[in-house]
């Protein structure tokens, strides 16, 4: 039975191969540029492989040695990689909470047919603008503004708000606040636009009928916009989370790669960068990347499940 079917198919013209050909470039480039490096990373994580000066050490197989080194607590009982991971998540949350709150608000305002805001195009471009600046350039700008002899300190002193230079770039709270607000500024425009697209994808008739039924704006927001926006919102949240876990350039530039103060602003990728610069320590960097991959996967699953559960009928 099956054989005859197969024969018949072969005789007919099959167009499905074109579909495969058209999607092939993605898969080919994915395999070359993403999958292969990923597999190599895992492979490298089992080897001692670094440079001491210009001398190559290894690769020597060490099994799980790199992971063990990474997860061994120091004399004070702190596991660095977990501390850095905590720093990273904290910095992400500090930036992401205002980012999503403001983005949601703006997205609702911009898409509201009742308000029908004028000059939306301009507003959208402006809020998107900070994202176009290179993160490192933006960090340099903030560095120039907030350093000890920068204009912010001068302004605060001349207006009498403080009587002594405030070291914004050393005090833990202010460094974190600066990093978080930079991330917020850079990304809220992007999130707004993604969420607007999501809201505009919701059937307008639902809003209209809710209005006719006398639902207030809050009611509409929580019972129509938010549940129907959930797929997009969770997508935006997960991408932001993944971006957050990979946070690097802003804290790197602001703290000159040192995570000042007390490595409280060292992120995981900054640690990765320390492994890779100078000694090209592919072993440790590989192990760290694999750990990060696993953590990212788990967290993304968790966020996705939580959000899906809440609004699934």
């Amino acid at each position, binding site marked *: 039975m099956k054989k005859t079917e197969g024969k018949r198919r072969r005789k007919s013209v099959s167009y499905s191969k074109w579909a495969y050909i058209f999607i092939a470039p993605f898969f080919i480039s994915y395999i070359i540029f993403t999958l292969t490096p990923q597999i190599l990373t895992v492979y490298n994580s089992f080897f001692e492989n670094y*440079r*001491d000066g*210009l001398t190559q050490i290894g690769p020597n197989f060490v099994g799980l040695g790199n992971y063990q080194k990474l997860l061994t607590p120091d004399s004070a009982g702190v596991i660095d990689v977990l501390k850095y991971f905590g720093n990273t998540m904290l910095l992400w949350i500090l930036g992401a909470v205002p980012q999503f709150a403001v983005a949601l608000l703006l997205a609702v305002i911009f898409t509201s047919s009742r308000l029908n805001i004028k000059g939306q195009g301009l507003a959208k471009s402006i809020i998107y603008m900070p994202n176009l600046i290179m993160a490192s350039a933006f960090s340099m700008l903030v560095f120039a503004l907030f*350093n*000890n*002899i920068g204009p912010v300190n001068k302004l605060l002193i001349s207006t009498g708000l403080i009587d002594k230079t405030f070291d914004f770039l050393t005090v833990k709270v202010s460094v974190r606040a600066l990093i978080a607000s930079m991330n917020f500024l850079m990304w809220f425009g992007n999130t707004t636009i993604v969420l607007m697209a999501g809201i505009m994808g919701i059937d307008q008739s639902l809003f209209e009928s809710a209005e006719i039924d006398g639902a207030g704006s809050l009611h509409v927001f929580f019972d129509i916009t938010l549940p129907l926006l959930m797929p997009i919102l969770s997508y935006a949240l997960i991408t932001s989370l993944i971006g957050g876990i990979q946070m690097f350039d802003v804290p790197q530039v602001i703290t000159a790669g040192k995570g000042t*103060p007390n490595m409280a602003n060292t992120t995981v990728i900054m640690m990765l960068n320390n492994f890779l610069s*100078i000694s090209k320590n592919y072993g440790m960097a590989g192990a760290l990347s694999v750990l990060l991959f696993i953590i990212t996967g788990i967290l993304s699953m968790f966020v996705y499940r939580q959000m899906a559960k809440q609004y699934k009928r």
Partner: protein
Amino acid sequence: MKKLVSILTAAMITLSFAGCSAKPASGGQEADAQGKVFHIYAWNEEFKGFFEKYYKVPEGITVEWTIVPNEDGQYQDALDLALMNQESAAADEKVDMFLAEADYIVKYTNSEYTQDIKALGVTDFSNTYKYTVDAASDANGVVKGVSFQCCPAGLIYRRSIAEDVLGTSDPAEVQARLDSWDKFNEVAALAAEKGYLMTASYASTFRVFSNNTQSPWVDKDNNLVIDPAINTWMEQAENFVKNNYTLTAGIWDAEAMAESAKDGRAMCYFGPAWFYNFSMGPAFGEDAVKEGTDSTGDWGLVEGPQAHFWGGTWLLAAAGSDNPEMIADVMNTFINDEEVCSNLIEKEAQFTNNQAVNAKFAADPEYGNAYLGGQNDTALFLDLAKNIKFQNHTNYDQLCAEGLQTYFVEYLKGEVDKETAMKNYYKYLNEKFPAVHTPE
């Protein structure tokens, strides 16, 4: 299928043509033996400026610069990558010459990525300072490069502040008041009483101590060693910050340099000739004049509490270069060409690596450095240069020194306790240098 075949054939034909056209080009290069592009790696614009002003590039050769900042080892990273790809790089992209600092020069001289310059035609070292040749030689004594400067360092003091604090601005008298660390610390208290800063950065004196250590940063068994001299520096820095004798700004921070401007409060900086003619931006130079912060002439130079040298830029010959003749010519020019060396002193306030030229200016009563109020700095450096020995250097010096300063200052600022600061420093080194053992 036919189409595929024809496409493949077309591709093959094109490729083989490309192959043909490439061959004569390389053949042509062999004919004149020199590459068309002279590629130099550097970490700042200092040497580039001198090179462009004083070196006549042979016709038909263009010079290409790759400049990567030194901080945090970025320059070494970029350079290592380029050197490791040297063999497979196209002729015009090969590194021909690169600059290296005292902090990491041994890493390159002891590698196969540099070549013997005597074989290239740089043979006359009769006028250079011995330590500059030692530094550029590998363990077997093969010379791999030259330095265009000699870097004895001294104490650069502000004349007007010295007048106010010590009652004199004469170099000999100032030196008598500052010729030991005890005296230096005492004067710091006097300066603070008058509202001045002894130094502008907690790390100002770091290089004086680190250049006078008994042991290298990393010993033979790859253990990190904090030398007693470094401990003394830490104590001094702590004391200075506590008493407001100095600032917690880093040595290169704009905040520290700003104290050298017209209304600056810092009495002392430490450094060699390049420090005041290249690094003290707010005090000297066109920009300073434009901004009105210029303090030219209000400075003096003395030996200070302890002799030391700091930095220096070596030109190293990269192995596999396709411009060996030009490498030799550049090196010979900057160590042996009297006119160029004289220009470096007269116009650039350098202390050159040519003893004869230095001696000429040191003996010249007409010569004086305008930055230093007409003082003949070359004469003083000539004395100081005699004592320089290049010793206790390792591959790791740059980050060991920089890292200690940046993590220790967190303690000075009161963000962490001393133990944590040191622990963070060790962690930093562990991440950067897996081969180096730090104290537990």
